[in-house]
């Protein structure tokens, strides 16, 4: 038996050798940068050629605790991430329930609902900037037609409307992943059980409450956790939209940290912010998934 295992190990060695270059690349472009970034968070590193870099202990982290702007952006990031994840999850499940009827006329909706996934952040930004335009966007034109006094709404320019608009765009762009996963899970829902419930005269709402949602739970909870951290660190989409409409105090922490690094050249400080964000995300995922695992073990 031991001999057989050892030959299997030897047989797999060729695969390992084949993958060795890949491992080197992963270490080079993924592991080392993370380690460097953690190290940089303990230094006074600023942009420039031939600047001295010195370790300064926890100075960056201490400064962070006094940085009210960072706290504001952290709070905003949390609100953004929770709201957009809730919105996408609820709407995504609704769309999946609609699509799961397997009616032929649902096919166009299926393509439409999954299409944002095939689009790049700049393309999404273009689409919504055109749609939300003050003068020529359809919403504003309709509002003017209806003689609404505020027929010139700057959905992206108005500081109070910017955030809700961003949520709508986020829901639109980030939903496909949830829809697809929920749909995949619904496909394996026991048809017999579902039909038995229909015969027993269970109302659709009760069915949703006692059959469908519990069935979706094991898929949705980890997905919710993952989306929470992805959206907390969602850089591309927000950066591109902010690029053309930078309203004050609307930076989520990841954009805030990026600006600290690439606009103000504060690499040390930006790294400390990045490490903080990563730690926070790690704790968040751990707490949610741990709870989920404990529940599924019971």
């Amino acid at each position: 038996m031991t001999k057989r295992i050892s030959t299997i190990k030897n047989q797999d060695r060729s695969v390992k050798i084949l993958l060795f270059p890949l491992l080197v690349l992963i270490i080079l472009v993924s592991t080392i940068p993370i380690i460097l970034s953690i190290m940089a968070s303990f230094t006074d590193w600023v942009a420039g050629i031939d600047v001295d870099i010195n370790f300064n202990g926890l100075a960056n982290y201490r400064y962070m605790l006094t940085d009210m702007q960072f706290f504001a952006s952290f709070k905003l990031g949390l609100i953004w991430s929770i709201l957009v994840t809730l919105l996408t999850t609820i709407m995504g499940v609704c769309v999946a329930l609609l699509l799961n009827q397997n009616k032929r006329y649902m096919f166009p909706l299926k393509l439409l609902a999954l299409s944002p996934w095939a689009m790049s952040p700049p393309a999404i930004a273009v689409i919504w900037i055109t749609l939300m335009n003050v003068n020529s966007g359809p919403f504003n034109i309709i509002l003017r037609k209806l003689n609404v006094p505020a027929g010139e709404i700057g959905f992206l320019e108005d500081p109070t409307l910017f955030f809700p608009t961003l949520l709508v765009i986020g829901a639109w762009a980030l939903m496909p992943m949830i829809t697809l996963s929920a749909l995949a899970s619904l496909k394996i829902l026991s048809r017999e059980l579902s039909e038995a419930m229909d015969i027993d005269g269970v109302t659709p709402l009760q069915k949703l409450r006692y059959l469908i949602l519990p069935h979706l739970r094991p898929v949705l909870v980890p997905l919710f956790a993952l989306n929470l951290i992805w959206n907390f660190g969602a850089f591309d989409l927000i950066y591109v939209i902010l690029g053309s409409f930078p309203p004050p105090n609307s930076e989520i922490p990841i954009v805030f940290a990026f600006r600290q690094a690439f606009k103000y050249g504060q690499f040390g400080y930006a790294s400390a912010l990045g490490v903080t964000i990563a730690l926070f995300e790690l704790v968040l995922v751990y707490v949610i998934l741990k709870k989920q695992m404990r529940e599924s073990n019971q």
Partner: protein
Amino acid sequence: MKTLRVIGTVFFTIFFGLPLFWLVSTSLKQELQIGSSDLIWFPTKPDWANYSEAVNRSGILVAAWNSLWMSALSAFITTAVTAPAAYLVAQSRGWFSKVATGWVLSSQVFPSILTVFPLFLIYVKIGLFNTFTGAIILYVIFNLPFSLWLQRGFVKNVPTEILEAGRIDGASGLKVLRYVVFPLILPGSIVVFIYAFINTWNNFLVATVFLQGNEKQTLTTQLARFIGTEGLGLFGPFAAATVLSVIPTLLLFIVLQRKFTANLVAGAVKS
């Protein structure tokens, strides 16, 4: 319940359809119609001038070509390395699979945008900065965690008896992979390829930071340039360029979506 269903279907069709419809309609309007304060749902005479202007604009065609070949190549490499890697992760019980899982998780948690600067310095030092090779390496590595996770489900479904039978016959690990595992996880490879292609095509970060100069732009960075200072007056060509940039991924997705969803389910269910 039925009314709720109808309302839901109508709402979501508009919610997802309207932005796309408006984009296409804008791309076919003349400049005056675009700025018009009258509601023009669709121009009576579609004008293709925006498309020729978008295509003639410096760099769009080059960028489209760069996006296309880099996405295809990155997706191919990702698919090729994911299969053996997922096989190894699924096979090994010890530290290897733990380390791999740990890496997959941590790479999701640590904001990639903040590793960009150290990475930039490394790239400059070893001469990979502003090279297609360097960009493709990044695309592949960024695609890898999720691809591994996707492929893992499929590899797990390969019955161990088949693997062991191959081994007892004296086949090497590579041969088992080539003749036994690869054909069995073809559905998983299709899923990974589609995911990797779309993800690379839409990637914004890598080309923004690591590729400089007009001849090395991708469609995403070209579009982002449009959005910036110069683009705001040019909604027409802008919309046309966006339509063009969306077509390949959308087509790929429409053609393969049935397979994609089915395979995604297959990978998730049995494991």
